[in-house]
C-alpha cells in the first residue's frame, strides 16, 4: 500500500524535475497520506474507499511542483557558477562578453564573476573605441581635448596622490563617466568650471590618469588604464582611484555613470533630464534628484534614491532598492533584491517583475487602479480594498473603478504589498 501511494504521489508530481527536493516532498506527502489511510481503514472504511478519499483530499499540487523546479534550477545555477573557484569560466566570459543582466529569469551570478563580465564589456568598449571612429575623432581632436582641460595639478595628500582636472562647462550638455573600482562622488562647483579630482593610492602615469575628453558636447571621463597588462579585470593588486566631480549648479541633459565596484553618490538636488547609472556591486546614493527619466541598473549594489522622476526604471539582481519621492511611470525588475517605494503621488503606470525579491509600495489614496497579476507563489496584499480575490495565480484586481491606471505584477515567489500612505 505504501508503494502504491508513493507511486500515485510521484505521478501527481510528474511535472517536477527529478531531484533531492522532489524526493523529500514525495516522502513527506506519502508518509502523511499513509497515516490518513491507516486511520480510515482502522475506523472500518473499506480499503478502496479509503484510498479514494485520500486521493480526493490531495487537491492541486501545481504550486508544489513549481517550488521543486525553482529549487532545482537554483541549485543547478549554483553548481555551474563554480562556487569553489570564483574565476571558473572567466575565459568563456571574456570570449562571449557580458550580456545585459536580465533579472527576470536568470539569477544568481557571483559578484566576482559579474564584475569580470562588466569589466570585460568595458574592455571591449575601450578596445572598440581604440579602433573605431571615436578613436579617430579623439585622435584628431587630441590637441583640442588637451586644451579643453584647462589645468591639471598633482599633489600629495595623506599618502594619496591627488590629480585635479579643470574643465570649463560651457557648451557641455552631459557627462558620461566610467570607472571600474573607484568611487564617484558628486559635489557643487562654485563657478562655471567642472572640477574633477582623482585620488589614487599610488603615482599615476599619463596613461593611468583619468582619460577625459569631450565628444559631441558630452564630457567623457574614463578611469585610466591601471594595470600593466592592459586589461581592466580585477581591482586587487592594482592601482585604483576615486573620483570627486564638482559640477556647476545647472540642469544637465544627460548623466551616465557606469561603475563595477565603485560606489556612486550624487549631490543633492541635481537636475538631470536623462539619468543612467549602472553598477555591479557599488552602492548608489542618489538624493533629491529631479529627472526626466532615471534608469538604474545594479547587480548587488544597494540603491537609495529620492526625488522625482517622470520615468523611473530600476533593474536589480540582488541589490535592495529604496525610493522616496514621486514618479510618473515606474518599472521595476528584481531577482532577489527587495524594493521599497514611498511615493508622494499615484503613479500613472507601474510594472513589477520579480523572482523572489519582495516589493513594498506606499501610495496615497486615489480614485482607482487595476492590478494585473501573474504569480507562482508570491503573495499580494494591499490595504486598498481590492475587488477580486487574490488567491488565483493570475488575474486582475481592481481598486474602486480601476480608473485610468493599469499596474501589473509578475512574480515567482516575491511578494507585493501596496499600502495606503
Amino acid at each position: 500500500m505504501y508503494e502504491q501511494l508513493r507511486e500515485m504521489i510521484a505521478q501527481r508530481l510528474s511535472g517536477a524535475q527529478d531531484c533531492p527536493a522532489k524526493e523529500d516532498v514525495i516522502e513527506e506527502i506519502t508518509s502523511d497520506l499513509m497515516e490518513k489511510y491507516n486511520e480510515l481503514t482502522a475506523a472500518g472504511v473499506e480499503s478502496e474507499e479509503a484510498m479514494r478519499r485520500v486521493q480526493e483530499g490531495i487537491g492541486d499540487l501545481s504550486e508544489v511542483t513549481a517550488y521543486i523546479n525553482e529549487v532545482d534550477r537554483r541549485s543547478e545555477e549554483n553548481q555551474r557558477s563554480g562556487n569553489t573557484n570564483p574565476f571558473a569560466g572567466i575565459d568563456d566570459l571574456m570570449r562571449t562578453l557580458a550580456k545585459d543582466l536580465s533579472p527576470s529569469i536568470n539569477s544568481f551570478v557571483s559578484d566576482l564573476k559579474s564584475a569580470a563580465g562588466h569589466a570585460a564589456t568595458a574592455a571591449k568598449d575601450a578596445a572598440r573605441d581604440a579602433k573605431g571612429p571615436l578613436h579617430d575623432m579623439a585622435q584628431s581632436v587630441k590637441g583640442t581635448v588637451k586644451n579643453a582641460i584647462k589645468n591639471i595639478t598633482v599633489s600629495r595628500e595623506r599618502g594619496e596622490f591627488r590629480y585635479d582636472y579643470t574643465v570649463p562647462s560651457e557648451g557641455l550638455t552631459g557627462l558620461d563617466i566610467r570607472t571600474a573600482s573607484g568611487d564617484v562622488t558628486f559635489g557643487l562647483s562654485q563657478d562655471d568650471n567642472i572640477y574633477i579630482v582623482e585620488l589614487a593610492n599610488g603615482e599615476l602615469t599619463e596613461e593611468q590618469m583619468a582619460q577625459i575628453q569631450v565628444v559631441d558636447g558630452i564630457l567623457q571621463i574614463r578611469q585610466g588604464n591601471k594595470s600593466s597588462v592592459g586589461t581592466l579585470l580585477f581591482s586587487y593588486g592594482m592601482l585604483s582611484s576615486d573620483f570627486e566631480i564638482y559640477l556647476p549648479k545647472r540642469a544637465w541633459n544627460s548623466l551616465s555613470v557606469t561603475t563595477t565596484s565603485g560606489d556612486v553618490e550624487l549631490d543633492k538636488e541635481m537636475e538631470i533630464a536623462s539619468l543612467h547609472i549602472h553598477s555591479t556591486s557599488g552602492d548608489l546614493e542618489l538624493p533629491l534628484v529631479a529627472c526626466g527619466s532615471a534608469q538604474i541598473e545594479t547587480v548587488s549594489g544597494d540603491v537609495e534614491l529620492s526625488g522625482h522622476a517622470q520615468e523611473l526604471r530600476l533593474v536589480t539582481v540582488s541589490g535592495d532598492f529604496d525610493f522616496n519621492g514621486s514618479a510618473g511611470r515606474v518599472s521595476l525588475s528584481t531577482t532577489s533584491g527587495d524594493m521599497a517605494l514611498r511615493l508622494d503621488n499615484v503613479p500613472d503606470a507601474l510594472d513589477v517583475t520579480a523572482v523572489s525579491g519582495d516589493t513594498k509600495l506606499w501610495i496615497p489614496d486615489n480614485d482607482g487602479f487595476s492590478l494585473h497579476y501573474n504569480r507562482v507563489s508570491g503573495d499580494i496584499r494591499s490595504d486598498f480594498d481590492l475587488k477580486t480575490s487574490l488567491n488565483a495565480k493570475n488575474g486582475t484586481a481592481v481598486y474602486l473603478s480601476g480608473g485610468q491606471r493599469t499596474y501589473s505584477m509578475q512574480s515567482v515567489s516575491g511578494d507585493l504589498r501596496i499600502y495606503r500612505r
Partner: protein
Amino acid sequence: MSMTSDIIRGHTETMILAQLLEHDSYGYEINKSIRDRTGGAYEAKEGTLYTAFRRLEQAGYIRSYWGDESSGARRRYYAITDEGRAFFRESRDEWQRVKAIIDRLIGTEQA
C-alpha cells in the same frame, strides 16, 4: 461554500502558524487538528497545506526537520521561528481588524 473556502484558504498560513505555536507538528497532524477544531467544518487540501509549508519556510517563519520514525516513511516536522511568531501576531491582528470592519458594515443582527 466556495466563498467560505476561498476566505479560509487565504488564511492557511496563519492557521498553520497557530498550530505550531503550541508545539512542533507535521502535515497530517496539522490538518487533523484543523478539522477537529472546526468540528469537521473545514479540512484543508494537502496541496494547499504543502504549498503553505514551502512559503512559510522560504519566508523564514518556520523550519523543518525529519523525524526518526522506526517504521514507515519519515515524517517532516515543522517548528515556528521567532520571525514566524511575529508574523503570526501581525496576521492575527490584521484579521481582527478586517473582521471588525466587515461586521460594522454588514451588521451582526439577523435581518
